[in-house]
């Protein structure tokens, strides 16, 4: 039975062309598998999802499909689709795929997640789904441990917000898909330009976004040192 819930794995907007020395970081390995496979597996085995949509740079679509075929024995619920030019355009491509293939209504839920956060847990996914169904949108966060310093001119401190009200954003971020798209499409080009985060689409328009408890282990693998950190979190490393 269809749940009207979809996983959206964000595997990079631009990517890197073949021939460059570096592969996109989601294809680097931790343990014995590419990072993106660890992440997709977490979503692929979760029974809530009608489909898990992996948004990939155009040049890496076939490569991603090959990896899924190689590592995940039963993967008919996973599909690879081309990403967009920005993070939010990539999410919109995912929503477009859902609309074209499954239909979109007010209750369609999307759980969006960075492909380079393979330590996401079953609990975070469950709580995201629940929060998105109840509130319409949610963001996975952890309390800020470092003091946040704001500097408008990039030279002097303009303010130091109270740390007890500060959080660091992780993913998943989950939404009622139709509402997210409608609000996004109502934004001006200038507004779209400043959006680095999907939750900000809703926050800009005064919509409520609920917090879901993340975890310090839900790291984003960005730098080579993060690979070493990820391997340290794994047993026997």
């Amino acid at each position: 039975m269809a749940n009207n819930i979809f996983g959206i794995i964000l595997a990079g907007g631009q990517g890197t062309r073949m021939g460059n020395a570096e592969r996109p970081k989601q294809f680097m390995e931790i343990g014995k598998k590419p990072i993106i496979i660890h992440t997709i597996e977490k979503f692929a085995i979760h029974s809530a999802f009608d489909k898990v949509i992996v948004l990939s740079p155009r040049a890496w679509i076939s490569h991603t499909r090959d990896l899924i075929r190689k590592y995940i024995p039963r993967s008919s619920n996973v599909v690879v689709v081309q990403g967009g030019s920005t993070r939010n355009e990539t999410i919109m491509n995912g929503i477009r795929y859902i609309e074209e293939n499954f239909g979109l209504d007010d209750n369609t839920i999307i759980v969006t997640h960075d492909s380079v956060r393979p330590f996401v847990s079953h609990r975070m996914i469950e709580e995201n789904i629940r929060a998105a169904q109840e509130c319409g949108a949610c963001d996975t966060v952890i309390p800020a441990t470092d003091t946040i310093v704001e500097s408008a001119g990039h030279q002097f401190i303009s303010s130091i917000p109270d740390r007890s009200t500060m959080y660091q954003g992780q993913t998943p971020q989950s939404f009622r898909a139709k509402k997210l798209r409608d609000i996004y499409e109502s934004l001006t080009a200038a507004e779209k330009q400043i959006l680095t985060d999907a939750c900000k689409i809703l926050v800009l328009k005064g919509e409520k976004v609920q917090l879901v408890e993340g975890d310090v282990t839900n790291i984003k693998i960005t730098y080579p040192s993060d690979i070493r950190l990820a391997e340290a979190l794994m047993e026997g490393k």
Partner: protein
Amino acid sequence: MLTSVYRLVRPRQFELVFKDITLDTSHVIVHPVRLSICNADQRYYQGLRAENILRKKLPMALIHEAVGRVVYDPSGQFQEGTLVVMIPNTPSETDEVIAENYLRSSQFRASGFDGFMQEYVSMKPDRLVPLPEDINLSVAAFTEIVSVSYHAIRRFLRFSHTRRNVIGVWGDGNLGYITSLLLKIILPESRICVFGVNEYKLHDFSFADDVFLISEIPDDFYLDHAFECVGGAASSKAINQIIDHINPEGTISIMGVSEDLAPLNTRMILEKGLRLFGSSRSGREDFLGLINLYKENPDVVNQLEKIVGAEIHVKNIQDIIRAFEIDIHKIMGKTIMIWEN
């Protein structure tokens, strides 16, 4: 797939690590939903095992009593969402004579390798047994310990002579409760008598035909067979008391675990021609038989609900420690972790 595993690294200290599970066609992935703490887990948690044993076995995920839901089964044997009990005994060979739980080559969860304190567990399909969907989840969580009693009773039926008019159970804890309850169901014609040290605990044994404080057993009281469910330092006292009150050629089933040697009245064992046998753990056949017994006797599950103790929501290491500490201070009952990982 990276799955979180909560391992005990030293007494009272857990650590979160991630294990890479390979998705393949010969394993089923289960998401644990309820876990039950056993005395064996407590012996590791509190550091009550010998130093060399702790050094050898830790770090290791504890818990061998758990139920979960199937999330992924490429073999197609289980539907997604099926509620299953996970069998902790993991044999690597079969034997025509020796049961799977006595094969020295078998491994056991939370003893030889990681137990069920994991986000997802990868299991061979024959280590899973489906449960009725309407079963009380907390009772289902401790199916394993009930299967251990069931296993001992099956062996008792093989080993003992058929005069089973009076059967005694020594021990007023969880194991004594479970064993005497199953005995009353399996042998309804037998008079089941329970012997304990706490009068208020003995009041809970409503299904038993008689209960006695061990300090007030009439001298002329005799029984045909007995089960020892005491364990620990009091093991030998319990077994010797059974030897005093048992009729000739009776069978004594020993079930309590003791870290120390237990001196026994061997003279009377010989004189009375007694049979003593031990049982430990259980195997797939026991789980299947027990679940049939649950289906045929819903009262059993209802009586087992009486020993569900604290039910604690667990999301992180702090919650795990809280559950183990609450379990230490309980008077009776099974402590359940509602697993939200």
